[in-house]
């Protein structure tokens, strides 16, 4: 009787371990595959220096959008935040700016709620939204929008 129980538990344990193995196996992805990209495309869609430094590939951001760059779509907040965690987290990182109420990720007007691409553009010059009303102060408060 007792041995049966032991055997059963061992069985369950082994099964679980095997399952966990399979689970972790499935979760181990290979790096995104490099898709061929013409020099012309590269020039048309340059990426920001801080992303280039990490050697990011198109499909690291444009996930599940096929491998034809012509068909790539905006990745939205969800895309950005898959690496950059959350808007609250990003606001927290600039906490010192809150002291003077100039944290762009936690502004007096909007809190940590703006769309990323209200200001940040990956393939063209970013445009700080604060400038539309605070044309003179923004350069005192923060650097150019990355």
């Amino acid at each position, binding site marked *: 009787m007792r041995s049966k129980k032991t055997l059963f538990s061992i069985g369950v344990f082994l099964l679980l371990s095997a399952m966990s193995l399979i689970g972790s196996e499935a979760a181990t992805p290979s790096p995104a595959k490099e898709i061929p990209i013409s020099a012309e495309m590269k020039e048309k869609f340059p990426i920001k220096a801080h992303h280039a430094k990490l050697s990011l590939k198109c499909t*690291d951001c444009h996930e599940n959008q096929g491998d034809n760059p012509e068909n790539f779509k905006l990745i939205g907040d969800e895309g950005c935040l898959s690496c950059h965690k959350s808007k609250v987290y990003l606001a927290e*990182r600039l906490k*010192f700016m809150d002291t*003077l109420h100039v944290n762009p990720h936690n502004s007096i007007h909007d809190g940590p709620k703006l769309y990323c691409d209200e200001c940040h553009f990956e393939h063209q010059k970013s445009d700080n939204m604060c400038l539309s009303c605070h044309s003179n102060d923004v350069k005192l408060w923060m*650097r150019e929008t990355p």
Partner: protein
Amino acid sequence: MMKKILLFIKSKLFLFGAAGVFIGLLFSLAMYEGLHRTSDDKFCIVCHEMAPMVAAYHNDVHGGAGKTGIKVTCVTCHLPHDNVLAYIATKARNGVVEGAIHFFGNPDAIDWHANRANKEHFVEDEGCIGCHTNYKTNTNISAKGLKMHAHYESLKNTDKKIGCASCHAEVGHHGLKSMLNYYKPEYPYYNGKLDKQKEEVEKKLSETLK
């Protein structure tokens, strides 16, 4: 005579062996203690200009702010671990250089903010991986995280190599950017306006380091 001694030793082999082991242990203990006591924030801060870094470290899970209270020492991430000699050599060199800057140089001239652009150079990835051994498979990491870790792996040993800190920007030092700004504002507009924050940090720091 020689023979006698040898015989004596032989007869007391066990004792001698034990003594040898004991002395050896004592040595390594001293060494260990020495290295250990010279590895944490309390020691490092004596010479290193790093008050804001330490303050931010104390706010981080790696600095004891987590639920478990586990603390990782400075050297775990900031010194190479591939072999003991390199470890000690780097440690000694750092000690001399930083001590010299601290006592004879001009620590104010260090541009912390600019240095952060090379943050990966200040972190030894083996240190991170020593604990986070399963960073490539841990199912608690998001799918994107695992994908990026695979990306990291694929760049290893290439000229495009990146480090853990290339992405994990404030790892080990929660709120580092703000902390650095309390001490040395990045933009002149903030000069003198963050002093209250700095004072609070200093107060807390002197209490924790007591």
